[in-house]
């Protein structure tokens, strides 16, 4: 055996990383004079302990699933898409334009069209940097991050101009028509006799995210296009030699990536806010990078990592609420610590664990 078993790669290493992260953030909590065990308990209980907490956790997880999948698809073609932030924002404009264009009779009719609007706009916003990369060699990392700023400016322009609700000072659109209201978890589960919290923003987009995860898996590992994407990512020269068009793969993978990032707007803009606001993405585009890293660019890993990050976001809020001594900034430090250990410092754990397995194998 020259590799460690798969279960160690997928389960053990993330768990060890997570433990280290908890220990490190525990020290931070200790340093400000609070009980770290209590802090962790509050976070976990706050994230999973009630249907309201769970509803928020899964709502955030939905966002991270979309952006995590977006990063993963591009990454399989060795495109580092860090423009999820901007792509989601522009996709929000697409979804909003579709929703506000008609007085939708029913959400089931509005949803597919809103998805199309969001996917087209988000995909387009990723396709421009993709074209520049494929044709001009402009580095995708630079262009996608610059497109985040352009997207923010475009949003500001639109929400203070043509799309602005004239009755408010806030940069936001008018409220969406009632026909475009997506069913929330409360509304979906009530007929089954489950009383899910009414206030939690979890909505049908969660199922859409799971469906997207399945589709991404199917695309990458069960279709010819997915094979081309992965082949191109593994070896650009080899793929070209096999007759795979670099231009086509870069354009398609980035378009899909942007479209997936754009699905975030269905969850937030259509599902929760029911109006377009300026800063609705709130860093989820960047969290997606950490999610994809931690999930090892596999849909199942991404789903699990998203739920963990959702727990962190919601648990962090509960921590602010239950332990007033822990400020917003300390919560951010704890969240950052977990991201650091599970994402960037992955190899710190991987090396020793791998060695340990090899030695055990030799000894046996």
């Amino acid at each position, binding site marked *: 055996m020259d590799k460690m078993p798969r279960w160690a790669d997928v389960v053990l290493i993330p768990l060890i990383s997570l433990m280290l992260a908890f220990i490190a953030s525990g020290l931070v909590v200790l340093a400000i004079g609070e009980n770290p065990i209590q802090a962790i308990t509050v976070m976990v209980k706050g994230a999973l302990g009630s249907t309201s907490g769970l509803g928020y956790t899964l709502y*955030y997880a939905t966002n991270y699933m979309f952006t995590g999948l977006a990063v993963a698809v591009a990454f399989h073609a060795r495109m580092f898409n860090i423009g999820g932030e901007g792509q989601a924002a522009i996709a929000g404009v697409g979804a909003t334009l579709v929703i506000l264009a008609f007085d939708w009779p029913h959400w089931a009719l509005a949803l597919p069209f809103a998805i199309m609007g969001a996917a087209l706009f988000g995909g387009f916003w990723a396709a421009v940097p993709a074209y520049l990369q494929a044709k001009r060699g402009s580095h995708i990392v630079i262009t996608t991050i610059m497109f985040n700023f352009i997207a923010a400016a475009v949003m500001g322009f639109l929400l203070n101009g043509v799309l602005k609700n004239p009755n408010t000072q806030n940069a936001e659109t008018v409220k969406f028509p009632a026909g475009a209201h997506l069913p929330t978890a409360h509304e979906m589960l009530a007929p089954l006799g489950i009383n899910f919290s009414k206030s939690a923003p979890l909505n049908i987009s969660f199922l859409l995210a799971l469906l997207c995860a399945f589709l991404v898996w199917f695309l990458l590992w069960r279709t010819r296009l997915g094979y081309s994407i992965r082949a191109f990512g593994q070896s650009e020269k080899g793929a070209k030699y096999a007759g795979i068009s670099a231009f086509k793969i870069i354009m398609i993978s980035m378009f899909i990536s942007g479209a997936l990032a754009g699905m975030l707007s269905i969850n937030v803009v259509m599902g929760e806010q029911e109006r377009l606001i300026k800063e609705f993405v709130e860093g989820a585009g960047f969290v997606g990078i950490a999610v994809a890293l931690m999930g090892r660019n596999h849909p199942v890993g991404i789903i699990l990592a998203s739920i963990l990050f959702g727990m962190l976001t919601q648990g962090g*809020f509960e921590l602010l609420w239950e332990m007033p001594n822990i400020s917003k900034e300390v919560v951010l430090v704890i969240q950052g610590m977990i991201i650091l250990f599970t994402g960037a410092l992955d190899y710190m754990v991987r090396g020793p664990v791998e060695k340990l397995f090899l030695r055990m194998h030799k000894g046996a």
Partner: protein
Amino acid sequence: MTLMQKFLGAAATLALSAGAALADPAIIFDLGGKFDKSFNEAAFTGAKRWAEETGGNFREIELTSEAQREQALRRFAEAGYNPVVMTGFAFASSLDTVAPDFPDTKFAIIDMVVDQPNVQSVVYKEQEGSYLVGMMAAMASKSGTVGFVGGMDIPLIRKFACGYVQGVKAVNPDATVIQNMTGTTPAAWNDPVKGGELTKAQIAQGADVVYAAAGSTGLGVLQTAADENILAIGVDSNQNYLHPGHMLTSMMKRVDVAVYNAFSAGPDLKPGFNVLGLAEGGVDYAFDEYNKDLVTPEMKAAVDDAKAKIIAGEIEVHDYMSDNSCPVK
């Protein structure tokens, strides 16, 4: 101070774990954060003053995400906190949804009107305070040209500008007022460099007093005014101490007063409009040891006279937001 905070925090945790004893008040700070040197911080000051004077406890939370607006409102209301105060107009639509679900809880929102039977909407007559500082600007100006630098171009800031111009013209009908807005996006609240550039441009056109109503952008305006040796007027908090000798005055918008009053009223907070003008001490001009050498006795007499007349209703300062237009330019 830190010890005090710790103590207060511990007391708050205790109160909570004891099953929320209550009707303690609560305050929610907007995404800008509690210590933004401006709006949110002023609200915090009011809450702190209430706690110090009454020995009472209050709960606070700083938001980190848009989705938390409704979440925080519901959590406070469910836990029995009363009243729940929030800073800023961005809360309007969330409050509009949450308020009907908690008819026994009183809410107060600052800078915005939410029409619900258990909500107090606190709005300010910024035009009245701006009128007074406009008068002072016109009297202090030697060139007869004064400037105004606004933040984001929204009706609220035009309300500041309009009151200011009315004050200037009341003293000197021939005066010129140069008006600039920093931008049309929220970034305009936080661009001190551009604030400084606009100020330089206004100075080049002859302005020798500038009034900044632009959040953090205003700090650049005040700095440039001090560097170029002209006078500046601050906003919201008393900013006179920033550049003594160059700060003519500050137009104070007492967000802290609104929070203090709401906390003091407790569960008996009166719903409806709460319009704070000169008469209610909601807005005022700042006069302290930092600007007493710049404000001549005649100036002070004239401004205090106008203030009395506005309170008495003899002078009516036009409110830009009442008809979205300004009678003077």
